[in-house]
């Protein structure tokens, strides 16, 4: 990185990123109308605001803390051990499952008329669904719990990266050999090292929980919805006063996020103060290792994918039947393929452009600025998407394909950078030195040595960029001016409708598209490396 002597590529790298990131700033100006005192009075006087705020705080705090707890529990139970790599291999596929598809599958499983209730119906003697609130409860608890499951997968993925460094495993071996029990080593030695590394991923999880709209529409309460949904509805209201209120709600969302961050930091300080130095007592017995712990998590994810598949093929299927009365391919045959191809096009374009930008940046960009590029991941998406929309309106590009791809890049680029950063950093510089000594120019070195050797991480980054683009909901709606129907916008729009078959088909597509891309990336990587042993 940074060996580039020419100024032009460096300037190009900065310009490329600037085009993706900077126009959002002037776009945020119209949101300034939400800073006026009168607007805030209106916002706070609205009876929905405080209840919606409660939903947002409960669901985002529950999702963040519980996701952390789940991820840590799983890691502590499985690492180090043979099940850990097995779990790790399954993570990318689960990670690629878009949030909206996950939420729809969870709804199919857990709703009072869902699949689980249908299995229970003969035992409980239900002939109609119970009048329960297993989803869409007014406190946002079910929203928080299900977000936690999804985010736990993300945290596990981040943990896997941290644990790949051998040092921790050596410490574990050493401490065990000194007679400390497994859980004791984790608590005394590993957690204090691992937790700080999870700070940024946790911020991302919190930011997502605070500003998520698509999952909240599917699993969250309706009266009132979470603050993000409310803010989004207000921003989309024809009445100008309500638009201003929506802008104010966006700022409130940001404020809540910062306050929660502060609370999290405080919590961390308290926890650190509570940590004591090892006192020498050994609890060797505390080595119980529940290896099955990953199964409930994995099983839940597989079951909800199965529920989606069944419902996409179901004919009439009314409660309390455990299986459809008949099967049909109608949902797939009558499929409107336009959203599929729109998604595919947007995903390929943003992943392709994203890769070019990220590679250029890693090669020639100033590394000191890299951290700023992760900002979109740890900020609530709603104000950013609204800012993008205003920026596109100013440029006269709202509702264009270019505008939508550009809006996706704000999230695609950071995730791709996140994926490629470490492999790039760890690249053996002796190769480059050798290549230079052979007289290869900068781009020849990249093209003939570095990038082919980094092909697998590059393919993985492409797949991740594609998956991120597929899952975008708010930016697609805002920047696309409603003109771009993708599998995600269709799935969310249909989730308030009644036809579960059509909904299941869209959710399946949403699920399958990124999976296919991941499979393709893996296969291509293996194919390219078929004659090269030990090639990463």
């Amino acid at each position, binding site marked *: 990185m940074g060996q580039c002597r020419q100024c032009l590529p460096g300037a190009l790298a900065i310009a490329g990123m600037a085009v993706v990131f900077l126009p959002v700033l002037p776009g945020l100006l119209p949101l300034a109308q939400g800073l006026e005192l009168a607007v805030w009075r209106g916002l706070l006087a609205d*009876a*929905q605001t*405080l*209840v919606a705020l409660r939903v947002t705080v409960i669901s985002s705090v529950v999702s963040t803390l519980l996701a952390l707890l789940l991820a840590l529990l799983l890691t502590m139970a499985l690492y180090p051990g043979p099940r850990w790599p097995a779990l790790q291999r399954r993570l990318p596929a689960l990670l690629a499952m878009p949030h909206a598809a996950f939420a729809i599958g969870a709804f199919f499983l857990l709703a*009072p*008329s869902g699949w689980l209730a249908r299995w229970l119906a003969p035992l409980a003697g239900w*002939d*109609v*669904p119970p*009048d329960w*609130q297993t989803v*869409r*409860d*007014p406190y946002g608890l079910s929203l928080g719990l299900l977000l936690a499951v999804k985010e736990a997968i993300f945290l596990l993925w981040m943990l896997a990266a941290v644990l790949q460094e051998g040092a921790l495993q050596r410490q574990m071996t050493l401490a065990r050999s000194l007679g400390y029990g497994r859980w004791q080593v984790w608590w005394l030695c590993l957690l204090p090292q691992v937790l700080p590394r999870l700070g940024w991923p946790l911020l991302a999880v919190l930011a997502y929980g605070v500003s998520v709209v698509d999952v909240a529409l599917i699993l969250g*309460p*309706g*009266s*009132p919805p979470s603050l993000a949904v409310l803010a989004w509805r207000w921003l*989309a*209201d*024809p009445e*100008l006063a309500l*638009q201003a209120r929506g802008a104010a709600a966006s700022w409130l969302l940001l404020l809540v996020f910062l306050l929660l961050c502060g609370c999290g930091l405080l919590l961390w300080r308290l926890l650190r103060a509570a940590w004591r130095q090892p006192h020498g007592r050994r609890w060797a017995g505390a080595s119980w290792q529940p290896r099955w712990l990953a199964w409930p998590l994995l099983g839940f994810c597989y079951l909800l994918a199965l529920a989606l598949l069944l419902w996409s093929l179901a*004919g*009439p299927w*009314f*409660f309390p039947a455990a299986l459809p009365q*008949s099967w*049909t391919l109608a949902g797939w045959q*009558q499929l*409107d393929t336009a959203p599929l191809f729109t998604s595919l096009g947007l995903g390929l374009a943003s992943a392709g452009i994203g890769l070019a930008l990220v590679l250029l940046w890693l090669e020639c960009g100033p590394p000191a600025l890299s951290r700023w590029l992760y900002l979109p991941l740890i900020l609530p998406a709603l104000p950013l998407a609204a800012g993008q929309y205003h920026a596109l*309106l*100013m440029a*006269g590009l*709202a*509702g264009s394909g270019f505008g939508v791809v550009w809006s996706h890049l704000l999230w695609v680029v950071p995730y791709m950078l996140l994926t490629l950063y470490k492999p790039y950093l760890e690249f053996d510089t002796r190769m480059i030195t050798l290549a230079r000594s052979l007289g290869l120019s900068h781009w020849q070195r990249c093209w003939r040595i570095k990038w082919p050797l980094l092909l697998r991480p590059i393919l993985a980054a492409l797949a991740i960029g594609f998956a991120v683009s597929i899952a975008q909901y708010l930016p697609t709606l805002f920047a696309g*001016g*409603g*003109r771009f*129907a993708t599998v995600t916008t*269709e799935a969310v*729009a*249909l989730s*308030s*409708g*009644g*036809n*579960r078959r*059509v909904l299941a088909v869209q959710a399946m597509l949403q699920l399958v598209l990124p999976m296919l891309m991941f499979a393709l990336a893996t296969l291509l990587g293996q194919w390219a490396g078929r004659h090269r042993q030990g090639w990463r």
Partner: protein
Amino acid sequence: MKKRIASCLLAALGLVLPGMLAAKPAATADWAAVSREARGQTVYFNAWGGSEAINAYIAWAAAEARKRYGLRVEHVKTGDTADVVRRIQLEMSRKHDGSVDLLWVNGENFKTLKDGGLLFGPWAEQLPSWRHVDLQKPVRVDFSEPTAGLEAPWGTAQLTFIADRQRVSAPPRSAAEWLAFARANPGRLSYPRPPDFHGTTFLKQLLLELTPDAAILARPVNEAAFARATAPLWAYLDQLHPLQWQQGRAFPPSAAEMHRMLADGELRLSLTFNPNEAANLIAAGQLPASSYSFGFRKGTIGNVHFLAIPGNARASAGARVFANFLLSPEAQARKADIAVWGDPSVLTAAALAGHAKAATAAPGALREAVPTLPEPHASWVGALEREWLKRYGTR
């Protein structure tokens, strides 16, 4: 009822006369010019996209328009029309070219657009297909707001209830019976959460029946009138909600979701704005075959839905040509066909005679004659929704 019809007719006459005086003899020549201009244009038709049947119909109409008029029609599937209205407002305030060429609209969204001067036209009554329109239907007022030729009628609708004969043999046929039914079936009734369109319509239905003087509702709302007219409604809802699904603390997000809940037995009754909806859903395997439609004894709210062109539309000629096709007897008859969409036509029976399939009601469709009650003035919608949200929006 008779008085109401008479006043409607008078109002309609008041609208017709100026229109007739302004009519130009050169209409045919104008239309030829419009058709020429339309060829090759792309029309972005923003219409609610939550129903497969409707989407499939629009796709058919778009394909026909391409074949016949060399016109490309893109269906932009929208969720909430208010979203589109806002986009038009924003674009026009910044003098941008429009992203919307034709819009499916009625009620307060139309009023917002009309009051803001955001619409193209008048154009609707210059369409060649206009001569087929049944002027007996309220095609020139939209929620008591004169359309002034700024929007063309597309279809009619009437609030209709659905039940399953397996579970409900004697459905409620008035607001009072609805409450009694809720008492007998606690936790099994609900309505979509306002400001969902169907939820708000249900509120208006109750209001029409419960309010002491329904005539007030035809005039623009004011604070005193609102308080007086709606007091019985809130008293009624205070009694109804604790008996509802989830004790009235939660509401289904949409009527479509209610149909699903009806099919699973989670709810006993559902509602729709399309008298043929239950038949459609039975045919699609989404409702049990034992489902049926019914209305209230004294009638239910009915209205017309319209097509409008924003003032900044890029393809206003194309939009008019497409609207004219949608208003043609052929397209209207197809739309009314239960196997296609089942949306009742706005044309005269005579115009449809050559095209319409025998209008035998499919199983599940509304078979009884339910009187049509007029919509309250559009200004009541916002006031009702705001008050509802204030009272029940945060439980």
